[in-house]
């Protein structure tokens, strides 16, 4: 496997379910054989248990960074690891904090390249449905990730990662 798509979030907590919604939609598509989809719920550290030597881990998450709901945040490897653990986030230890801990404690993660798509939530109150702006963002991210995988083609080693950016 080359790419692990890892959803983070609680689908019973409103827009915190954005990442799992993206992953579920992608899992329904015919993905290349070198892609695997997993659901971490809110335990990013469970990556250690579900990772099967994939070279890249793409996290699909909700990210509360103070932008308008539905904003799609994109972070490449360096940017993701450099994000402060204090940066607004919907989960326990922040994603960057968890990744740093994984890389510190488990040398096998040192060569893994991480990147993330995060969707700005409108509400993380208990509930199963996504707010309209977040649902629309989920569709955008599904399309974008699927296109990125398609661009890779072959064994998944080709293609250039998208630049880091956010869009409303």
């Amino acid at each position, binding site marked *: 496997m080359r790419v692990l798509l890892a959803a983070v979030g609680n689908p*019973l907590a409103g827009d915190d379910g954005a990442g799992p919604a993206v992953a579920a939609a992608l899992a329904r598509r015919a993905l290349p054989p070198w892609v695997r989809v997993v659901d971490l719920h809110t335990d990013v550290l469970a990556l250690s248990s579900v990772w099967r030597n994939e070279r890249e881990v793409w996290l699909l998450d909700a990210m509360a960074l103070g932008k308008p709901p539905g904003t799609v945040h994109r972070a490449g490897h360096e940017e993701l690891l450099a994000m402060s653990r204090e940066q607004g986030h919907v989960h*326990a230890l922040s994603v960057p904090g968890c990744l740093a*801990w994984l890389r*510190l404690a488990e040398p096998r993660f040192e060569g893994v390249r991480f990147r993330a798509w995060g969707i700005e939530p409108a509400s*993380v109150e208990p509930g199963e449905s996504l707010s309209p702006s977040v649902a629309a963002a989920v569709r955008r991210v599904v399309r974008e990730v699927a296109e990125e995988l398609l661009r890779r083609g072959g064994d998944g080693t080709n293609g250039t990662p998208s630049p880091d950016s956010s869009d409303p």
Partner: protein
Amino acid sequence: MSARTVLIPHLGRVEGHGGIVVRVAGTTVTEVDMTIHEGSRYYEALLVGKRYDEVQGIISRVCAICSASHTVAALMALEDALGIGVSARVHDLRGLLVLGSTIESHALHVFALALPDFLGHDSVLSMAQEHRELVTFALQLKQLGNRIQETVGGRAVHPINTLVGGFGKIPSHAELETLGHELRGALDTLMGTVDLVAGLEVPGWAAQPTVFLALEPYEEGFRFRGRGIRTSRGEQYPLERYREVIHERAVAHSHAKHATLPSGESYMVGSLARLVLFGDRLTGRAREAMERLFPDAPGENILANTHAQLVELVHCVEHGVELIGRLTGMPEVRRDLVEYRVGAGRGIGALEAPRGALFHEYELDEEGTIVAANIITPTAQNLANTERDLRTAAERLLADRPGDDEALKLGLEMVARAYDPCISCSVHVIRDER
């Protein structure tokens, strides 16, 4: 000194989010509250109308960390409602699953959330500069808890193999023995951590008389599944009377209900409560750990809950090895599911989740559809006591260091973290802009 508000908008190192608001006039605390939303009412409503065999798939998604505890409590309640008795193998495997979940949860809380406070670091990552081996071991221990859940429950995060009446797939003896080997391998390092923590001073500014509540173990021993309710005041109740014992009430300042005893007193559930009430049942190195960490017996200082969790980690490792020995002494089978008839009924399941007593109750109709559900989580039970301890801590910290809001904030965070609130389970986020 003028009136002011000290706001901790979220507890950054606690599962989910939560906030603490403290209003102060001079050196007097006028108000303390954790600003949270109740989630369990939503989960109960979500379950009504679902079939009994859909419950565990839904309830395990409440929280990643507590999914095994919710799953086992729900299965116990459903089996109680349907009059199902499970085999000794299923009983022990579920016990192992709960131990795995407790190892995962306590390892995360003790090492990554609480210990940095005691060792003067602002995070587990900065703690790594001084205690790299400890930080590495913490992750390994947490992942061992995950692996136990994956082996027994079929998945690392949400158990899928746990069914009403038993298990769809029983782990092989070889898989169980591998886990036993790993558990035994963790024990010495864990005891080394006990020595480290025993040398740390526990601040006394949060200590005060506290009522503790825990489930009476189903057998003689320190166990997480219970058959009755006990308090540190000597009260004993059968499980069936839990609604009479635990009074949930709405409070004006919070979206979450607060729990009290019939007397109106708040109480604490969790590791410290279990040690206060049943610590004398610990054996082996867990007993050694308790004597080392609580030379004068577990007391009434919530900040020592982290120490109690460490004792329980030792117990979980030792008891896990014991359970594996028992399971591998049984004939190897591929599955263990009893046959049963679906019908109307009402049942209760209760166990000690990592953070304290957890209650599930379901009422089913003739077709096995859920017509009523009641879930009381440990964090919801601890809220009233948490606020009480926050107030006491704030008053003492203000008296000792008036005007030092940073010390006050850190102190309040330490108290809230000591309770190890699983806000994903019982409550949810708040962005308090006051």
